[in-house]
């Protein structure tokens, strides 16, 4: 692990060194950029970005920030949390490696998401030192996440493929709309968790890449221009748009994830801290897995 | 320039050959663009599609070194189609027949074969140029730096004479000169063949200057090794190196080799054969370089000892006159005191003269004659009062300073002043015959009185040709009172006869034995102007120079020709011994081998707008260095692909000097398939190796790169020894 950390740091610094080379956005690359301005074959990404950022991105983030917690608040009040006995037997679900990886990612997210909001609503905070600090934290805390995102992907990927159960789970929205504790069709991870997993890993990588491009701004990787056929400024514009759009989903699901682990299922958070899940919780919410464990005689 | 920059706006057609004002004279370019807005056509003839060419209505890509043939093609077409100004030619030009005869052979097809410009384009350009009245012609180093450079420049004048464009607003032959005071340096004749003011080196000239300098002619003779040496051309800036390196030249140089060199702010790496300069410097027993920046030759030449670098104050740290390309003199005020320990150039000269024991003689002509003088005003007066050949006597520090303080009172287009300056042109372009004279913005204009800046052609050589034909003009100058049409230059002997004015005895005594150019009382000039005559005469321009090898300009292939098949028909000159004291090769170099076989590409050199000369100053500026950090070799993409190159690759360029340089290539269609182009303004890398270690710590410029002059081919102008930098062959290989 240490090695990976060091390697990543070295890699990061090397990247910075490479980026410190000649910049293209202000050089010749501005020519296609300007040529495309107002012309038919133009992708008009600048205009698109301006329009989206000016009118939509902030509003959508605000909506997510307000509406998602609001829905959960209503859910909590109307349907209430699922409460499982914490006195019963436990099932060992996450080993040490799983937990460390998850915790690193979790800490990153806990910093990245709020600082991201600070940037989005920078004007509310008045800009300046505080927002600049958040912007830098937003970038710096990407590094631990970038380090663990691949181990995380690998360690859980085998449990994350689509299963017949997931369709059924989705049909009943995971049983969260009812107060009754009926067994819910799901493996070790239910469809909700799987969605979050795929978004956090693949979406996360996309966030890292687009974020890094925006952070380093005048990097010089001609390959990227050749592969995408985009000029560097357009690459940056695409990055900005993707970073925001994927950001909506990541933030929304991040809220769901927190709500589920802390509020919707009372005490569920302990499982990722200790590695043990309540047997009852597994039985109801991960019934397929429970069956499998039973067959193997592990419970 | 015969005219001035603002006057270009009066032109209907601007023919630019061998010049790139957009890069070399950006602020001059605005006048060309204004003319274009007023409907003038711009023609650019150049091997390189320059930034100037991008503004042209017509661009013709010419093979380097074929300008004479091209212009003969134009002249032939002009004569055949009666497009020349017959009246003008009859009245003011001598030698039309010889020119017409020589032009005969240059049919459009022949010209196409020689120059590479399609026949129909030649005709189109000629029609455009000949039908526009007036049309101006602009040239620059693209014409002068050839073995036939003098022929090239003569040819531009001949072309303009036939079209009747010389001496007219909006016309003229306008060379755009290089450095800020290069015109001044020429006028002061820092030149091996002349005393100041182009007086030459004859006895009369020396005596005239000795009297100006308040020294005895005999003393001056004693300063030289032998009296006859006063009258012999010295080594030129191009040939002195052969005086260090080649024993054979000692006999041309009073029996000695050059052993010491003092360089006051000259950029030597801007001359071809850098390697020769390097070797010459390394052999010197004394080398003194005076420069505000570290002169790059101090690093290129690996001198272990005997090299002194003296920090000069820059020109903003001293006051004085500066003569621009339009012959106009401006007063340059000191902005700050000399920086650091820097000393002004004159201060350095004075200190050295003290050590050498002739300080008193050096400064005797200024102030009280005993060393009490005010610099620069006394020096300004000294030189303007001495140099009458080009009419500097009307220029005084007071007039220049007043103009400087009131430059807003002058019209940018005509340079004419208003208010208290209504009888002056800005910067008093010479000739400025007296303190009342306004200066001459447009030369050879015989349609206005001399007192307002008019003049005819100078009767410089003789009023009669060897065959007895008169060289005097057939038309009188505007405002002439004496009725004289063409007339000889004014001397004490002929002044009464020509002007019809009687001189008093006192005046006669003052001017005795003098001519208009040596009469410091200015009486002869005043009398001439009183009679409406021009002090230097009113003659015809001659297209035939009977003293020269080429009586009329002749196309001669460059020494290193890309067209060996044409050499037999258009061979270069015979080798010339004692040419500015060096034995210079022409024919023997051209025939040494078939150069084009080994070196198939032509290398053009020029510069970037950011850097001037050797770039010593500009490459030391962080912002200019940022804009143009390294030299790039422009090469045609097709050629690049044929050579296995990719855009941005490093390449070796091998020159006919046997040396090679390493630069980055840039694919560009500015050049033709078989030509490449690069700037000469860089140094710091020499034949692929960095020489930055030889700079004193911290003084290496920001922008470094390889300069082209290392591989520029051998070759010098037949009259002036200007290096032939514009016709170079090379071979390019991937590094």
């Amino acid at each position, binding site marked *: 692990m240490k090695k990976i950390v060091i390697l990543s740091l070295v890699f*990061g610094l090397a990247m*910075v060194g490479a980026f*410190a080379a000649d910049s293209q*956005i*202000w050089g*010749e690359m*501005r020519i296609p*950029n*300007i040529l495309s*301005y107002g012309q038919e074959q133009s992708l008009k990404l*600048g*205009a698109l*970005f*301006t*329009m989206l*950022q*000016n009118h939509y991105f902030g509003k959508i983030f605000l909506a997510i920030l307000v509406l998602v917690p609001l829905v959960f608040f209503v859910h909590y009040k109307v349907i209430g949390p699922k409460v499982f006995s914490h006195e019963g037997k436990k099932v060992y679900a996450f080993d040490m490696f799983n937990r460390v990886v998850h915790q690193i990612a979790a800490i990153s997210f806990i910093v990245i998401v709020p600082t991201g909001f600070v*940037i*989005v609503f*920078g*004007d509310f*905070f*008045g*800009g*300046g030192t505080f*927002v*600049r600090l958040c*912007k*830098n934290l937003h*970038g710096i805390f990407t590094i631990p996440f970038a380090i663990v995102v691949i181990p995380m992907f690998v360690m859980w990927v085998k449990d994350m493929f689509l299963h017949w159960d997931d369709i059924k789970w989705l049909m009943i929205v995971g049983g969260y709309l009812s107060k009754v504790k009926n067994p819910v069709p799901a493996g070790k991870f239910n469809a909700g968790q799987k969605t979050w997993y795929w978004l956090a890993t693949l979406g996360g990588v996309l966030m890292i890449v687009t974020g890094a491009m*925006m*952070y380093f*701004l*005048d990097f010089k990787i001609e390959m990227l221009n050749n592969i995408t056929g985009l000029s560097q*400024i357009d690459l*940056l*514009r695409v990055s*900005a748009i993707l970073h925001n759009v994927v950001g909506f989903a990541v933030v929304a699901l991040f809220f769901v994830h927190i709500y589920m682990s802390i509020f919707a299922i009372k005490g569920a958070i302990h499982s990722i801290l200790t590695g043990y899940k309540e047997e009852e919780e597994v039985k109801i919410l991960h019934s397929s897995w429970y069956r499998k464990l039973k067959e193997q005689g592990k419970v | 320039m015969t005219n001035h920059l603002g006057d270009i706006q009066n032109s209907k057609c601007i023919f630019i050959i061998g010049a790139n004002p957009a*890069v070399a004279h*950006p602020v001059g*370019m*605005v006048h060309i*663009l204004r003319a*274009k*807005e007023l409907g003038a056509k711009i023609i650019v003839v150049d091997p390189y*599609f320059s*930034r*100037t*060419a*991008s*503004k042209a209505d017509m*661009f013709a890509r010419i093979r380097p070194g074929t300008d004479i043939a091209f212009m003969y093609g134009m002249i032939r077409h002009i004569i055949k189609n009666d497009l020349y100004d017959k009246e003008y030619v009859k009245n003011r030009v001598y030698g039309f027949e010889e020119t017409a005869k020589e032009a005969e052979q240059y049919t459009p097809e022949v010209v196409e074969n020689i120059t590479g410009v399609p026949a129909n384009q030649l005709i189109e350009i000629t029609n455009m140029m000949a039908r526009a009245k007036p049309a101006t012609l602009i040239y620059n180093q693209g014409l002068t730096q050839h073995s036939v450079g003098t022929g090239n420049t003569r040819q531009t004048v001949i072309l303009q004479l036939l079209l009747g464009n010389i001496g007219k607003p909006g016309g003229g032959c306008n060379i755009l000169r290089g450095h800020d005071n290069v015109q001044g340096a020429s006028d002061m004749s820092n030149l091996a063949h002349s005393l100041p003011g182009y007086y030459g080196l004859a006895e009369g000239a020396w005596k005239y200057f000795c009297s100006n300098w308040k020294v005895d002619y005999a003393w001056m003779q004693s300063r030289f090794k032998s009296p006859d040496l006063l009258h012999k051309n010295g080594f030129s800036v191009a040939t002195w190196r052969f005086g260090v390196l080649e024993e054979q030249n000692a006999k041309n140089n009073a029996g000695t080799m050059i052993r010491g060199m003092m360089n006051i702010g000259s950029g030597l790496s801007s001359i071809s054969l850098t390697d020769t300069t390097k070797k010459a410097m390394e052999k010197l027993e004394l080398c003194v370089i005076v420069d505000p920046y570290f002169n790059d030759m101090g690093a290129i030449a690996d001198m272990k000892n005997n090299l002194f670098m003296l920090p000069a104050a820059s020109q903003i740290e001293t006051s004085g006159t500066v003569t621009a390309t339009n012959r106009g003199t401006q007063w340059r005020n000191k902005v700050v005191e000399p920086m650091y320990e820097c000393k002004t150039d004159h201060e350095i000269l004075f200190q050295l003269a003290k050590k050498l024991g002739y300080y008193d003689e050096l400064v005797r002509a200024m102030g009280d004659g005993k060393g009490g003088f005010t610099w620069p005003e006394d020096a300004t007066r000294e030189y303007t009062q001495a140099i009458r050949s080009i009419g500097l006597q009307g220029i005084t520090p007071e007039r220049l300073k007043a103009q400087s303080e009131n430059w807003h009172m002058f019209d940018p287009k005509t340079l004419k002043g208003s208010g208290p300056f209504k009888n002056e042109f800005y910067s008093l372009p010479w000739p400025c015959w007296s303190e009342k004279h306004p200066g001459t913005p447009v030369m050879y204009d015989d349609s206005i009185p001399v007192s307002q800046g008019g003049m005819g052609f100078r009767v410089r050589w003789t009023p009669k040709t060897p065959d007895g034909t008169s060289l005097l003009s057939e038309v009188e100058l505007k405002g002439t009172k004496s009725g004289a049409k063409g007339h000889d230059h004014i001397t004490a002997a002929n002044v009464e006869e020509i002007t019809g004015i009687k001189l008093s005895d006192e005046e006669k005594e003052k001017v005795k034995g003098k001519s208009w150019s040596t009469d410091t009382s200015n009486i002869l000039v005043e009398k001439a102007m009183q009679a409406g005559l021009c002090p230097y005469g009113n003659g015809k321009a001659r297209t035939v120079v009977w003293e020269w090898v080429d009586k009329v300009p002749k196309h001669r292939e460059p020494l290193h020709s890309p067209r060996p098949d044409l050499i037999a028909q258009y061979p270069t000159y015979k080798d010339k011994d004692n040419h500015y004291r060096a034995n210079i090769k022409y024919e023997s170099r051209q025939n040494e081998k078939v150069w084009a076989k080994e070196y198939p590409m032509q290398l053009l050199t020029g510069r970037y*707008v*950011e850097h001037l000369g050797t770039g010593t100053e500009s490459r030391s500026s*962080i*912002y200019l260095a940022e*804009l143009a950090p390294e030299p790039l070799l422009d090469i045609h993409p097709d050629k690049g692909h044929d050579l296995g190159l990719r855009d941005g690759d490093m390449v070796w360029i091998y020159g006919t000097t046997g040396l090679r340089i390493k630069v980055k290539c840039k694919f*560009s*269609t*500015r050049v033709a398939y078989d030509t490449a182009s690069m700037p000469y303004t860089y140094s710091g890398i020499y034949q692929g190796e960095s020489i930055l270690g030889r700079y004193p710590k911290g003084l290496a410029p920001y922008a470094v790169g390889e300069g082209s002059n290392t591989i520029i081919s051998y070759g010098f102008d037949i009259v002036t020894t200007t290096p032939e930098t514009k016709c170079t062959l090379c071979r390019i290989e991937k590094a």
Partner: protein
Amino acid sequence: MTPNTSMRFYCDESRCIDCHGCEVACKEAHHLPVGVNRRRVITLNEGVIGQESYLSIACQHCSDAPCEQVCPVDCFYIRADGIVLHDKDKCIGCGYCLYACPFGAPQFPRQGVFGSKGAMDKCTYCAGGPEDTHSEKEYQLYGQNRIAEGKVPACAAMCSTKALLAGDATSVSKIITERVLRRGSGRGASESAMWNAAYK
């Protein structure tokens, strides 16, 4: 207030000769660090006979300034005379203004060890910034405030061929119209040619 009293730059392509005078004038006037180019001359169709042209580009001080629209911390402000300025103390160096700008005007000096970008820098139309006029801080952050002295921006004042014009839209278009009329043909000085709007 009519829209054409706002301050404009206009680069006359038929005059611009790529001499970089404006760039260096700007850099010397404001003492900019190497790598920060508030103004830049670009070449279009380089080496193509009959098509090559040059254009001096900087912040065009758009009326609908996209930078101002996208800035997450709202550090931009538009003066009554149309000059688009920003507050470097507020700016967080996020780069959004660069993505929005059709001219690539915003510049980001490299600062921290991780290649983080400092506060954005761009052409101020030589109008300084929100600090006290002619104060040391204003000079350090934004350069000269020539507008407060009643002077033309350095770049336009020093343009060698008077290709780059600066002034209120009405006067600038008057100059251009005169030139176009003299030329007899070519592009007119329409509002869009004045970069009145960035995205329209």
